[in-house]
């Protein structure tokens, strides 16, 4: 759906900052999250998890557990079928291991009991006979021939010979003559990088309440980024028809990609089916770390050639990502995004997805991009330092713009990279003085953004208010943005609109809340649904006035006669038309269903000032500014919120966060004490500058904003540290011991 020709119109409500509709519920404790639901007679379920990184499950004996008073059922993978769909099969096998435990914390069996305490006690009575196998958790080790094989037969054909079966897919992107490009360079830098796996770290653990009845119907309440996707995969696993499984999304306590799949829902459904009672499951934080999320860890090589005056002549990247014990596709997005910020004659990226004995990777905000862009932006900064060039000038000199053939293929339309770079150049932050052991770093960031399947229903109530039904869980204020766009289009007050998120039986299929798609896609569908309702309201007014439908226009929230009839009748407001709808043809509604494209890519630039303590190796972020193109900021507070929150997750990734495994492949830091996410006292304010370069693919020009901001902090901080203390950190996180070691190596 194209940008409106009248896109330069002055918006009356879009761009304002009204209170969010779910605000009061969320500040008073009234909002219902995943773990807040109960049902009469419900049971409590717990999962027994593998203590080994890799082990054959020879037998499971649940007799003693079942004999415990209060235990109602035990399930293992034998209680599921074997879905034909490989995606569903992998999801199922990740919930409960089939024959082999693939990582430390992999679910093996689950129990439902009359209380959580009894369920926990029962887990201790389940006897599992394991045969421990050799394991592998490092991506480079897992690729070697002879490495322990996580799963047989999952490798795609284009993976070259000489690699372990753990390598599941290979991809390649780019264009131009690399050899000729490198030959034109005055200087070539080649570096290798590693990044640790990090967890999305949402504060709400996964939770659900499942109720299956004996006639085959089921209700499922859960915290998810996409109730329709939950229905699809759970119906497949349970052998149910979609119409019989109604999934309701609770309020969601953070997701960041980690709640785009299921970990416990099929287990709860299976236990409910077996017991005939509602079953509630809530993960502990330890389980969240061990068995959900995390992102990939990576090993990467980057080679770039540059002229003395800062023009990149060629770029090459080799990316190896491990995504845990199942095949993933994440390296593809890394390989596509690595050089996306640059207009290059010669560029090539290569990617390998690899399995290891770690939990199955889940999406995490711009999945695959942060590490690849960290590697590229680190090398670009090294050039700037070596050649004495200004890092923003070099980015501007090479920046992708409208008409650039992107490194991953498509030619860019209107994009905001140059505008963000110019805004950063002009900002006082860029010229502010720095003290000893302080440095300033910067990095570009990029994300594709996504549109996808979307349905919206918009009902005109007879009292002149409007109800919107949409299907995407609201993670960061999207109900406010959707209500704003509807109010804008209809010409009524924001507080006359109420937007709710429907269960799977109340609306057509909606893709997950991911890909920064909701304000873009649901917004687009809302605007079109409003226009449909307006057409009906104009027709009703025409009927009342006895004039032609085409002779009625909609302006300022009212139908008005136009053309030869202009001024003949008093305008009828939405409320006037709604009040008499019963006499003019019945209820009035608009709806729109679309598989939206034209999401419009998003670029950002981050500036970071740090101070490194040479005694401890600790890095403190002193000042931070995010510049990003939002296309059109519908509710600027929540656009800023995405920019700030994403930046801080990236800061955690750069400085602290990592999955730590011991020699036995066991996760050593499955808790918030040892897996340290940034806390308030670690951080300065995160300043934001929103640029608005309208997206040609949306009627108001909206672009998704949620994912890009996690990308730049990794390199921005590594570049700042390098400029502060003269060491180039090529492995993340730059935790104090690592940085101290690097500093002592410097001499």
């Amino acid at each position, binding site marked *: 759906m194209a940008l409106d020709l009248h896109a330069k119109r002055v918006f009356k409500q879009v761009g304002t900052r009204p209170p969010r509709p779910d605000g009061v519920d969320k*500040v*008073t404790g009234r909002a219902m999250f995943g773990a807040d639901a109960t049902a009469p007679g419900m049971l409590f379920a717990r999962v027994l998890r593998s203590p080994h990184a890799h082990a054959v499950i020879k037998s499971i004996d649940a007799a003693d557990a079942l004999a415990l008073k209060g235990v109602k059922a035990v399930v293992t993978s034998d209680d599921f079928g074997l879905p034909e769909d490989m995606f569903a099969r992998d999801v199922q096998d990740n919930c409960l291991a089939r024959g082999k435990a693939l990582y430390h914390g992999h679910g093996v069996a689950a129990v439902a009991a009359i209380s959580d305490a009894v369920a926990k006690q029962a887990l201790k009575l389940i006897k599992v006979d394991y045969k421990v196998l050799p394991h592998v958790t490092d991506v480079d080790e897992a690729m070697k021939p002879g490495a322990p094989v996580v799963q047989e037969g999952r490798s795609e054909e284009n993976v070259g010979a000489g690699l372990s079966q753990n390598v599941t897919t290979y991809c390649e992107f780019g264009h131009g003559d690399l050899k000729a490009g490198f030959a034109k360079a005055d200087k070539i830098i080649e570096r290798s990088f590693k990044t640790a796996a990090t967890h999305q770290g949402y*504060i709400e653990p996964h939770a659900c309440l499942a109720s299956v009845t004996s006639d085959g119907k089921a209700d499922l309440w859960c915290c998810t980024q996409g109730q329709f996707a939950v229905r699809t995969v759970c119906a497949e696993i349970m052998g149910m028809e979609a119409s019989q499984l109604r999934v309701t999304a609770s309020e969601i*306590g*953070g997701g960041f990609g980690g709640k785009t799949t299921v970990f416990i829902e099929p287990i709860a459904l299976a236990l409910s089916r077996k017991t005939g009672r509602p079953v509630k499951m809530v993960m502990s934080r330890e389980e969240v770390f061990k068995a959900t999320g995390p992102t990939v860890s990576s090993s990467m090589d980057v080679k770039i050639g540059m002229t003395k005056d800062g023009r990149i002549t060629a770029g090459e990247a080799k990316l190896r990502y491990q995504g845990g014990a199942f095949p993933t596709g994440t390296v593809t997005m890394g390989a596509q995004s690595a050089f996306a910020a640059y207009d290059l004659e010669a560029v090539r990226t290569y990617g390998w997805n690899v399995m290891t004995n770690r939990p199955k990777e889940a999406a995490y905000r711009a999945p695959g991009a942060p590490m690849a862009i960290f590697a590229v932006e680190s090398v670009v900064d090294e050039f700037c330092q070596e050649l004495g060039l200004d890092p923003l000038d070099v980015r501007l000199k090479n920046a992708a713009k409208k008409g650039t053939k992107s490194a991953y293929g498509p030619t860019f339309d209107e994009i905001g990279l140059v505008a963000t770079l110019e805004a950063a150049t002009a900002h006082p932050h860029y010229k502010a003085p720095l003290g000893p052991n302080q440095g300033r770093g910067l990095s570009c960031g990029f994300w594709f953004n996504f549109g996808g399947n979307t349905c919206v229903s918009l009902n005109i109530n007879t009292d002149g208010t409007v109800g919107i039904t949409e299907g995407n869980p609201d993670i960061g204020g999207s109900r406010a943005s959707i209500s704003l766009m509807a109010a804008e289009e209809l010409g009524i007050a924001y507080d006359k609109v109420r937007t709710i998120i429907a269960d799977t039986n109340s609306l057509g299929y909606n893709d997950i809340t991911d890909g920064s798609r909701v304000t873009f896609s649901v917004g687009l569908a809302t605007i079109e649904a409003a226009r449909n309702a307006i057409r009906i309201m104009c027709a009703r007014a025409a009927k009342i006035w006895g004039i032609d439908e085409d002779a009625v226009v909609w302006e300022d929230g009212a139908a008005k006669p136009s053309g030869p009839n202009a001024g003949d009748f008093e305008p009828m407001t939405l409320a006037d038309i709604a009040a008499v709808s019963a006499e003019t043809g019945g209820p009035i509604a608009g709806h729109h269903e679309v598989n939206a494209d034209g999401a419009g890519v998003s670029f950002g630039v981050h500036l970071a000032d740090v101070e490194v303590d040479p005694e401890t190796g600790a890095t403190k972020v002193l000042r931070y500014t995010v510049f990003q193109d939002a296309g059109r900021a519908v509710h600027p507070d929540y656009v800023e919120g995405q920019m700030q*929150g994403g930046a*801080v997750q990236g800061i955690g990734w750069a400085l602290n966060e990592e999955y730590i495994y011991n020699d036995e492949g066991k996760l050593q830091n499955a808790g918030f004490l040892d897996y340290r996410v940034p806390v*308030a006292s670690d951080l300065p*304010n995160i300043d934001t500058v929103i640029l608005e370069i309208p997206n040609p693919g949306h009627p108001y020009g909206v672009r998704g904003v949620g994912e890009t901001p996690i990308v730049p902090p990794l390199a921005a901080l590594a570049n700042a540290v390098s400029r502060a203390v003269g060491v180039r950190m090529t492995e993340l996180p730059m935790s104090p011991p690592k940085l101290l070691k690097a500093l002592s190596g410097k001499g």
Partner: protein
Amino acid sequence: MKSMHISTTINGDSAEFVCGPDETLLDVLRNRLGLTGAKEGCGTGDCGACSVTLNGRLVCSCLVMGAEAEGAEITTIEGMAEGDQLHPLQKAFIDHAALQCGICTPGILVAAKALLDKNPDPTDTEVRYWLAGNLCRCTGYDKIIRAVQIAAKEMRSA
């Protein structure tokens, strides 16, 4: 394990419940009294989502046993507003977008109120250190700190 009968005061009202010796105050609030505003983010006192006050002191209710509520005065997020009048902190959090998903919000509000009760005019640094035990993964804390300061200013001038 034999259950105990506990008499306590929650948000100014007397309350009685029966709980096991292994149940935390958070378990009791959520599962026995239906007060689900306090959230369990970790169960180990690391995230602060379960913050309440016990006899005026800010605690993680996941680290307090239910039995310790005997004779105590407990306040939770459900007791923060007075009738339909939101507390200035609650209002500031809505007006200044200091929440995104909202799961940490009850704990942060309870903690911030405990700070302002002690120190009505904190510096940004004092707010940041006081709230260091309350994890938020969505906002990057920026708008939370600003909203606390806006509420503090309003409360000082009231």
